[in-house]
């Protein structure tokens, strides 16, 4: 009987950004400060 082989796309479907990337984003968010002066918004990173 003919066997049908197919590429395993499961890994691609389950693709997620790594915990390290997520942690970086969360830390970045915590360190980001937006201050407003005379209607202009300034960003600063308190790292």
């Amino acid at each position, binding site marked *: 009987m003919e066997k049908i082989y197919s590429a395993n796309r499961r890994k*691609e*479907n*389950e*693709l*997620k*950004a*790594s915990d390290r*990337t*997520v942690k*970086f*984003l*969360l830390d*970045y*968010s*915590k360190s*980001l400060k*937006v201050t407003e002066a005379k209607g202009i*918004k300034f*960003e600063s990173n308190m790292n």
Partner: protein
Amino acid sequence: MDVQLEDSVLIKRYVSGDEKALEALIDKHNQRLSSFIYSKVNSRDITEDIFQDTFIKVIKTLRRGTYNEEGKFLPWVMRIAHNLIIDHFRKSSRMPMYDGSNTFDIFSFIGDDKLNIEHQIIKDQIDLDLGVLINELPADQRDVLVMRIYKDMSFKEISENTGVSINTALGRMRYALINLRKIIEQNDIVLTI
């Protein structure tokens, strides 16, 4: 509907200082966004980079209070990612690449694909002439063409912006191109370098 509502609630919480809401937002869209990016760039490392840059833009926009797409969070994030993917390919096409063969070719490193000054002037003239021709099109066709070609919008976005169906937007684009060709042929215009 529930998903949209949940996003907007999470965004509100995050904007008012709840960092956990950001974690929930990232976690919620992580797989979908990563798969979308990976499907275009086909590299896990580049996917991570673009995912990170996308959310940095998201965080900045939310924190600056300039986010105004209530209920359409994921399409907005996808658009940011899409633009970053385009930037990535633009950058990488300018990067010198070593082809892996044994022969060393200095021109693969110092090659310059920029137009020379003469061709640049002709190209500028063509772009200008094309702009005049596009202005001759009926307004509905012109709008679709400008959004698609100059603003790089998808037909879905065009249909949302103009309030017509995707099929109508596609039809308008088709007629815009047909009419442009007609104008070019009737006036014997040559638009090539």
